[in-house]
């Protein structure tokens, strides 16, 4: 009665939005520890894309 891809997609979309949003708004100085890579922004976009794909599969 519940396709796991739907909650999986919603959760990763929310996590992706949180990370991407925080990545855009935060001071770039916080990325000194991640070797200068804006890891929140890039990984947030990856999670967002994964969440969207899962949501699509769950909806279908």
């Amino acid at each position: 009665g519940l396709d796991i891809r739907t909650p999986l997609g919603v959760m990763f979309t929310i996590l992706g939005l949180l990370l991407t949003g925080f990545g855009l708004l935060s001071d770039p100085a916080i990325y000194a520890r991640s070797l200068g890579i804006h890891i929140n922004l890039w990984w947030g976009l990856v999670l967002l894309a994964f969440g969207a794909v899962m949501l699509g599969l769950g909806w279908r």
Partner: protein
Amino acid sequence: MSVAALGPRRTRALPSTNKKGGLVHPSEIDWVIMGVYFAFVLGIGFTLRRYMKTSTDYFLSGRSIPAWVAGLAFLSANLGAQEVIGMAASGAKYGMATSHFYWVGAIPAMVFLGVFMMPFYYGSQARSVPEYLKMRFDEKTRGLNAISFATMTVFSSGVSMYAMGLLLNLLLGWDFDTSVWLSAAIVLGYILLGGLTSAIYNEVLQFFLIVAGFAPLVFLGLKDLGGWQGLTERLTHVATSQGFASRAWSSTWSQMGHAASNPMGVEWFGVVMGLGFVLSFGYWCTDFLVVQRAMAAHSMSAARRVPLIAAIPKMLFPFLVIVPGMIAIASSMQMGASGFALPHKADGTLNYDLSIPMMLSHYFPHGMLGLGLTALLASFMSGMAGNVTAFNTVWTYDIYQAYIHRGASDHHYLNMGRVATVFGIALSVAAAYVANHFNNIMDMLQLLFAFVNAPLFATFLLGMFWKRATGHGAFAGLLSGTAAAALHQALTLPRGSLVGIKGGWLAVLHLYPSEMAQNFWTAISAFTVCLTVTVGVSLVTRPRPEKELVGLVYSLTPRPSEAGRPWYARPAALGAAVLTVTLLLNFAFW
């Protein structure tokens, strides 16, 4: 208890109290990310609550789960504390050879389970592994397995809670009570509401979270050291500084000729027979915690593919959980650009157990830190939930229904399953406190469980593939195999250890180069004795009529047909592909 747990006891290296606040200081965004995860975990439990109408729904997900979902849950249920923290620590301590726990100690057994054993587990309609033993052998063999398994799962869950309590105390400064009760409440919430389906769905969530939380860590760690080449160059220094050949930390087999030439202290035969055959087949093919996920699949074909689907990410997991440990030890010996190094323990040695927690703290900014901490918590909770769902099923079907209250309504057993979930969690919490106050007792219990587990695969192997095996033979074999494991431990000792829990309590007839080597040979001894005694006793006792063994024994059971399916949906072809890739990985890192 997983095969991974057979390394040295992990939780000792974590300080037992930390009253000054943690090593990491999450910000609001980190707490929000953790909060989102916990909301989804409990939300899934609430959503599934209305579908729990029968005991089969609650204990076996109504046998309705797709193969890929059950496959990821099969893998995730094994991703407890020992896997994530312990394997990274082993990666630091032993290097790439730790991947033997995957490429030798897991994948072949998972393929064997899917191709050869699931037809009996699933086709017999047994509701649990102990129930299969009853159908194949007799009541006393089922009782022995059910009681030892139920006890073991509760203690394993307690040890997982205990390890999490110590880790959260160290990382976040939470006191032990808060960590244990909070994790217990969350696991209780979603298992009580949604049963096995809730556990399986959350294990899928946990699998993707663990990958999402740790993959960037490996990327950043490798980048810090100048890529894979930079890592192997530093590992050469790690190996030579400890008196080993230059490739001892970056190869899997090249130093396995002699126990003294590799940091694991084991030779190739011990790895192949002890780990690769006896221990891994004994765990992956007979432990109800993982087999239960495959039993929940929606068809025979799906059930057979569950362990094979799980084997695909499993073979890549060394890069996610072992490589961080290798990065940690390499950085500690020769720092990378960012200056990461492992902390030291009180005795001056490096604290390998903190490889992943310290890397999270060092490389991740706020935001990613929340994701990494969530992944760590998810791994602990998936291990706990797996134990609790296996416990409530075995308790209800194999102990309560078999010996305490037969013939009640299905609704009664559904309610008993919920009650068993509550007291299973309560016993786990009690076990966590016992571990916290009497660590030696837990070590002794884990040792006892290892003795009970070691001969198990011989019993199943003969039961499924030799129609002459009898219940008396199986029972005598299990008892004598357990006794042989205890006797082997009592007469041997790892080099440099004191007589006591490590062995030698009767006499020291043989010294092993390492504790791991002793574990592997204890398992080989138990398996050999169990096999021999089972065959011997079976030959002098009366076997069951062949018509009662149809569907339970290989030679008397029609082969499931997979004709007309694409190759990747046929268990034999998929299993062969998985084994081929695993073999290539062994050669690539030889």
